[in-house]
């Protein structure tokens, strides 16, 4: 009798633990072939109400000073949450920024955010575009003031946080919740890894070449190792962007930028931190015959990469297997019209 009653609480604890895990898994679909996420879900447990609030905020120009520029402006769902109209970001009052807007996906696995890694946690990432004078030109104080005056958001904050009064903390947590749902893991590559399909001969050859020449930095399955590298681009004389050194003040970080994911690369042109390449062909030509040598050049690029024209086409063929139409056309990611 004693042993029986003792077991019950243990069973309940186990049930509750497994329920918590399944709940996160259900909402954001943690793929089995992905590593453990970096984001600490315990600090911001996902709920449908918070995700829905974050989704509304993401698509609402209320986050900008002139109420005209939503996050979506630079991060359209149909282009894997980046924009393809400009090499550099396009913000408030037709301002042009200094960097290419990054594609947003699989953010729960990212350690640093922005091209130079200036932001150390997803929760804090939105502060940068909200405050930047060439992006949304506002401040978190101004945003919260507007949200507190909005009947719609009073209702959404109450449903999400049981408190109708918006705070900076809850606004940023809700945005994180929506962003965490942007998981791309339904590409042909993913189905290949899961044994659900076979690559064509061309894709297979491209995959082999990719693993030989590209995968050290663009590491599977996220197709980035999260590091910062100088990939041999000639510095733009007008932008004068020296990359991560601005944040770290370490000379060894000069001209280093975050290695971007290659998932959905078909949709996310133009390429590089300054959007200088319009096509994947341009990118292949850069890595084979355009490398600019400097002190901080990535060790992986110090020896010339030699590829035939056919091999370049094969690699591009493999890169196209990273396109995830389920992700790009997922109605749950779009403007919340309901």
């Amino acid at each position, binding site marked *: 009798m004693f042993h029986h009653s003792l077991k019950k609480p243990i069973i309940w604890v186990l049930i509750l633990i497994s329920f918590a895990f399944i709940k996160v898994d259900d909402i954001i679909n943690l793929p089995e072939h992905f590593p453990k996420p970096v984001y600490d879900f315990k600090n911001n447990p996902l709920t449908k109400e918070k995700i829905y609030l974050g989704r509304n905020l993401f698509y609402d120009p209320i986050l900008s000073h002139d109420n005209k520029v939503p996050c979506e402006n630079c991060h359209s769902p149909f282009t894997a949450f980046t924009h393809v109209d400009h090499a550099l970001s396009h913000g408030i009052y037709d301002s042009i920024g200094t960097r290419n807007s990054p594609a947003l996906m699989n953010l729960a696995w990212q350690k640093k955010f922005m091209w130079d890694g200036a932001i150390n*946690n997803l929760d804090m990432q939105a*502060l940068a575009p909200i405050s*930047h004078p060439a992006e949304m030109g506002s401040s*978190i104080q101004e945003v919260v003031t507007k949200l507190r005056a909005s009947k719609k958001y009073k209702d959404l904050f109450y449903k999400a946080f049981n408190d109708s009064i918006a705070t*900076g903390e809850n606004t940023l947590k809700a945005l994180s919740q929506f962003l965490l749902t942007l998981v791309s893991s339904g590409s042909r590559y993913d189905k290949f890894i899961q044994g659900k399909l076979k690559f064509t001969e061309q894709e297979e050859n491209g995959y082999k070449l990719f693993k030989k020449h590209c995968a050290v930095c663009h590491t599977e399955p996220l197709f980035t190792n999260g590091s910062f590298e100088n990939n041999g681009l000639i510095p733009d004389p007008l932008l004068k962007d020296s990359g991560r050194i601005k944040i770290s003040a370490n000379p060894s970080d000069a001209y280093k930028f975050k290695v971007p994911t290659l998932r959905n690369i078909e949709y996310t042109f133009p390429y590089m931190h300054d959007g200088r390449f319009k096509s994947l062909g341009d990118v292949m030509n850069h890595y084979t015959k355009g490398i600019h040598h400097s002190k901080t050049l990535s060790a992986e690029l110090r020896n010339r990469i030699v590829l035939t024209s056919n091999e370049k086409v094969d690699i591009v063929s493999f890169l196209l297997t990273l396109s995830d139409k389920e992700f790009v056309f997922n109605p749950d990611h779009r403007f919340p019209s309901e």
Partner: protein
Amino acid sequence: MLFSFCVFGQETTQKDLLFEASWGGRKIHPDSTYTMDKGSVVQFEILKLYLSDIRFLPDDSKRDVSVTKVRLIDLSDSLSLKFKTGLLKNDIVTGVRFLLGIDSLVNVSGVYGGDLDPTKGMYWTWQSGYINFKIEGSIKDVNGRVRSFKWHIGGYQSPGNALQEIELKHNGIGTLKLVLDLEKFMKEADLNTKTNIMSPGVEAVKLAEVLALCFTIH
């Protein structure tokens, strides 16, 4: 019965900590001006700083110290200048230990509310990290030339870790008053070349070290 209530009520009253920014023993007000040695006149417009992990050290070593996790002090907000310590009014305090700023763990752990909410204006937006303290104002020299100073000091990573640990000894009972001597700070700060520091780095650390030496407790 009434007598008992009063006695016990007095014993359980908590001890407050008062914060005061001073200039030569005078309490600083944002609207007032203060004269330096060489005749320059200083006016402070903003003084905001984080005190965290505040531990009061009672005389009885067997007792746990009282801990306040974080307080944002803002000279323009009188409510922020006084707070409960968790100590009883008759507790004898032998010292206080606190951090000037926010530690690295909090800096990398996402968003917080309360005094740490980013709407408090003490979080950088162009890069991650809390601003440990802000001091802004102007100096008018004897020739009438006016210069502004703006120090936003933070940084949690070496070699730019500006967090300062401060321990102050205290004798006696009663209300505790933490005093920041800004006259001493302005004498030590480099007012010729370093009047604008708003990013982490070695210069920010130096200024934080200077400010850390300007606290006393009474």
